[in-house]
């Protein structure tokens, strides 16, 4: 048989064995592994080693000696396609920064390196230095330099946290804020409401408590406002002529507009917003007691001053058609969010007195009439449910009861939101599932519920609630709020426009570029990814701006 070239992806025990098999049959092997070492996964997963056997010991020596195997470690497969007999692959290997031909395995470098970090190869049981080796004896040394610290890597928009926090320590607040604004135009708003995934990863948390990253951002943003400093605005001199329409003036659309301005499209960007003001869920979702409207307005004003035209009170698909937008603009971003409440799937859900949580918050924010008397029930365990419950207490309800199917621990809401709601007087009812809205005279008067208990755990370790038979009871209420998730209203486009629409009625996009399947049209934020957190919507808007720029420049 003629010699074949074989690509093996994954350098664990199975990959090593496959490599030796293939090379012994007279082939040439490329073994790609993303770790700096090979030979992991040594414990059998299909049998017990009761007969005194040991773990699998991959023959690394044989691999090293065999010229027919080329080990490409610290590498990833970037592209891969083809047919039997002819596959093409692109593999990217991160530099070890140490010449393995020259290195003589003396280990001196490790002794002098001042960086001590936990060793993820050894599952953090040991420390390593920034220069290290893997597979003792192989001389497989490398210098590990990260592009970003873990907090920055975790932040969806990759804010340079280390730098902006460092500036605060030095009292350089303007520099700190400028660092944030390189990427994020919403420091006042995000500094108040971000659930800060970065803080859960912060390395200081391993010692005592994580850095209060989010509120420090708020501090420098507030500093500018309280000291009445005019925010600095700088736009590039080189400009481009193409016109871009952004549909939806929420965090995602406005962040996209801001970055397009910074890229040179200022004065050619128009944001269309259906509501009387911009901000999206910052304005009509998140209640005023968490994010004051006047504060939000400052962030929006900052963006507007970057040569971004904002047209409020214009709903695309109603006031202006999507086709007209397509005609008049060179590129379009759909950043329409997710504003339709999901159904509770219980009987009599459409009775009077049953209200979608997001609609209620929107009406409250816009000063429209809202129910506010007697007692209410809030169904749901997420942050939206907390906002509905805490708002209800403020607008006049005497009693607010919140129903959740599982226990407090399984609630998706941020724990500090749950604590605040409880503190303020919301009554929580855990392990209770709504079954049917009780209706009298066409109006909801209560909810029939079923008690639950926790059953077996699921994949994530959350235990499934199972109903307790015969445990039905009725809870009285004048108003019932459903806060169990939101989906997108994609009706601004029609079927003939050919968009791929996802499960949450969202616009399906390439997750790396945020392009839709329609040329020249991009989508980001909740309307593309499904309801998420604001900073992720902002990050999507930023990436979309970069993609739009690439698309428009590529066309010229």
């Amino acid at each position, binding site marked *: 048989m003629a010699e074949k070239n074989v690509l093996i992806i994954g350098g*664990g025990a199975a990959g090593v064995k496959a490599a030796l098999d293939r090379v012994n049959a007279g082939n040439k092997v490329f073994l790609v592994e993303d770790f700096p070492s090979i030979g992991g996964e*040594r414990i059998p997963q299909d049998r017990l080693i009761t007969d005194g056997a040991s773990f699998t010991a991959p023959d690394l020596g044989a691999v090293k000696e065999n010229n027919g195997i080329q080990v490409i470690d610290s590498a990833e497969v970037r592209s891969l396609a083809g047919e039997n007999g002819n596959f093409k692959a692109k593999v990217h290997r991160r530099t070890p920064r140490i010449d393995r031909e020259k290195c003589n395995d003396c280990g001196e470098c490790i002794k002098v390196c001042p960086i001590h970090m936990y060793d993820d190869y050894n599952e953090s049981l040991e420390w390593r230095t920034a220069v290290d080796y893997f597979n003792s004896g192989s001389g497989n040394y490398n210098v590990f330099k990260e592009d970003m610290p873990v907090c920055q890597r975790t932040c969806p928009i990759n804010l340079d946290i280390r730098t902006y926090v460092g500036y605060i320590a030095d009292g350089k607040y303007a520099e700190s804020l400028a660092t944030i604004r390189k990427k994020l135009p919403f420091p006042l708003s995000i500094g108040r409401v971000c659930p800060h995934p970065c803080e859960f990863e912060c390395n200081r948390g391993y010692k005592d408590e994580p850095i209060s990253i989010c509120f420090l951002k708020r501090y420098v943003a507030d500093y500018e406002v309280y000291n009445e400093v005019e925010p600095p605005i700088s736009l590039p001199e080189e400009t481009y002529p193409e016109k871009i329409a952004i549909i939806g003036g929420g965090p995602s659309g406005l962040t996209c507009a801001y970055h397009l301005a910074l890229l040179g499209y200022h004065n050619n960007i128009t944001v269309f917003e259906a509501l009387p003001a911009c901000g999206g869920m910052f304005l009509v979702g998140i209640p005023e007691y968490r994010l*004051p409207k006047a504060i939000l307005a400052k962030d929006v004003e900052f963006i507007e001053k970057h040569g971004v035209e904002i047209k409020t009170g214009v709903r695309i698909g109603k006031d202006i058609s999507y086709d007209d937008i397509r005609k008049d603009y060179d590129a379009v971003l759909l950043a329409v969010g997710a504003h339709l409440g999901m159904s509770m799937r219980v009987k009599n859900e459409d009775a009077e007195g049953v209200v979608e949580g997001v609609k209620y918050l929107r009406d409250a924010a816009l000063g429209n009439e809202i129910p506010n008397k007697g007692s209410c029930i809030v169904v749901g365990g997420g942050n939206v449910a907390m906002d509905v419950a805490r708002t209800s207490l403020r607008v006049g309800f005497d009693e607010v009861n919140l129903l959740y199917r599982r226990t407090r621990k399984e609630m998706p809401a941020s724990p500090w939101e749950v604590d605040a709601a409880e503190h303020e007087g919301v009554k929580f009812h855990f392990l209770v599932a709504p079954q049917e809205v009780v209706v009298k005279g066409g109006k909801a008067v209560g909810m029939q519920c079923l008690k639950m208990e926790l059953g077996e755990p699921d994949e994530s370790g959350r235990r499934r609630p199972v109903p307790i038979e015969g445990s039905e009871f009725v809870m009285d209420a004048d108003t019932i709020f459903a806060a169990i998730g939101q989906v997108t209203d994609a009706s601004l486009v029609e079927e003939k426009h050919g968009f791929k629409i996802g499960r949450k009625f969202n616009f399906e996009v390439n997750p790396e570029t945020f392009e839709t399947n329609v040329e020249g049209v991009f989508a980001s934020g909740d309307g593309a990814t499904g309801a998420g957190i604001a900073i992720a919507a902002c990050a999507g808007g930023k990436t979309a701006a970069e993609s739009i720029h690439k698309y428009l420049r590529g066309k010229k």
Partner: protein
Amino acid sequence: MYIYEKKGRYIIDFQDIPAKRAEMPEIEVEERQGNMKEVETGFPEDVAVAEAKRCLACRRCLGCALCWAECKPEAINFDMPDEDFELEVDEVILTSGMQRKIAPIRGNYGNKHMNVVTDLQVERMLADTGPSDGLIFRPQDGEIPKKIGFAQTFGGVDDKVRDAALFYAVNEAIMAQKKIEGVEISFVSPDMDAFKASAGSDLDKVSGVNFVNGTVAEATEVGENKDIELKYEVGGSEKTETFDLLVLLTRPQLPPMIEGSAKKLGIEVNYVSFLGTPGEIVETDKAGVMLAQNM
């Protein structure tokens, strides 16, 4: 010796830098009634600056070049570039790779207790080239545990994946018995009865391990030694047992590189696809693409 210390232990205490993070000031609950006043009022300046100083400014290599100065054969080259390979091959073989997920249990968010480890950490401890020359130890004080608990906190996965996770961990328990004379081991899994059927008579050969079909509820740190108290339910009643070391089982899944490669080739694989006869290389729907079964 520092190998027995866990991450973060090396961070130095500075007297002028607070250990506790700053707390956000809020208006009183009474002040919130009937209005939409902002609840959180923001840090004062001194609090913000003190909080910012707590940041460790994390980075990895800081480019001090001490190693470079020390290296006699001048092997260290900070400018060495990344490399790109374009490969043309006749055949592609995918392996399962190693990616495992931990399901946190109550009282133990994100593996915070020192003496709670994962089965992956035990794998490292058992390795001769690992951090402890093959010894199982308690990260908190480096002592050899006399009583070890294994707990499976996830459920609802494919039977074969569940069995793979359990075989993996039970093998570790067997190794632990060999390494630590007289060690007591309890093994709690909601799928233990089902696993017993899969493992067959081999499991009966494992003596001295208390296999429990139970659901894990909570793990808490107790006493000065920071032992771990595990609460679990067996047949409707709650049990409590205290261990020197608690090992959490992880759920195996495919790493992004393997999943991505399969997708690029247009084939569907999952972890189960790699659980056949050990070491065998099997064909897929797409000619020229093979799967190497787990060893």
